[in-house]
């Protein structure tokens, strides 16, 4: 049952990324490019996604997930090195290629092979992160 709902959620996510044009890197880079031919599509996608999500969060109060367990707790509002450094590095890569983790999976079937190079590098980066984080923790304090 958990797998069925996970597949359904993933399917909605993938269909949404495909239909919204967010697997088109020129739309993403066009949104980031405020000095070029600015493309506001991404703001509509973000806004459209936040509406049902906000309703869902409001619905979680005092309830439990349909399939058991509990809802994720609100994280400590701590703005540390990892959040700032990580988001900055992510933004640089996002700007360079116009791809982020969701769209690279959604465009697997029509990405033309070049996306596999990006995907392989992204997975390598993800695999390397625990090691990098431990190294950074030893040399630079986290806060």
């Amino acid at each position, binding site marked *: 049952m*958990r797998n069925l709902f996970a*597949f359904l959620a993933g399917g909605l*996510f993938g269909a949404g990324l495909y*239909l*919204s044009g967010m697997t088109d890197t020129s739309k993403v880079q066009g949104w980031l490019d405020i000095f070029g031919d600015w493309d506001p599509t991404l703001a509509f996608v973000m806004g459209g996604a936040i509406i*049902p*999500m906000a309703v869902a969060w409001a619905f979680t109060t005092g309830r439990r997930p349909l399939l058991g367990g509990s809802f994720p707790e609100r994280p400590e509002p701590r703005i540390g090195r990892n959040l700032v450094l990580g988001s900055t*590095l992510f933004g640089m890569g996002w700007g360079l290629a116009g791809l982020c983790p969701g769209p690279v999976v959604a465009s697997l079937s029509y990405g033309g092979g070049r996306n596999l190079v990006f995907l392989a590098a992204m997975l390598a*980066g993800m695999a390397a992160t625990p090691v990098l984080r431990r190294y950074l923790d030893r040399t630079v304090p986290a806060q």
Partner: protein
Amino acid sequence: MQMDWIWGLIGGMLIGTGGAVFLLANGRIMGASGIIGGVIDGSGRHNLSERLTFLAGVALLPLLLTPVFGPEQTHLTGDLATLLVAGLLVGIGTRFANGCTSGHGVCGISRLSLRGIVATVFYIGAGGITVVLFRHILGVI
């Protein structure tokens, strides 16, 4: 152009509905980098099948929709160095920040999470500066 915005809004609402299903049914936050990262670094071993079925849905639905709407053009660069550097930065960055556009952006902002909002400001800021620098100043992307 305006048609793109409407499709953006429709697609966005589907993305948000996917996030709502994953939250209300499975009790999980729909963050693409977290779901993939947990498969890669082993931290998601206890719910691996849920992660894999989610990712299967993400990859499969666009494939099923392609006969109806036609293949989406990705306009992705063919430059190998750019692809490798960008992929590494996205992989390392999202795992350090513990989230990406879906996790921090969609799921975080919608619950007014300070971490989600700060992360989004930083990745959009860094992305904007990167595009301006590499497209308009250096002229390489």
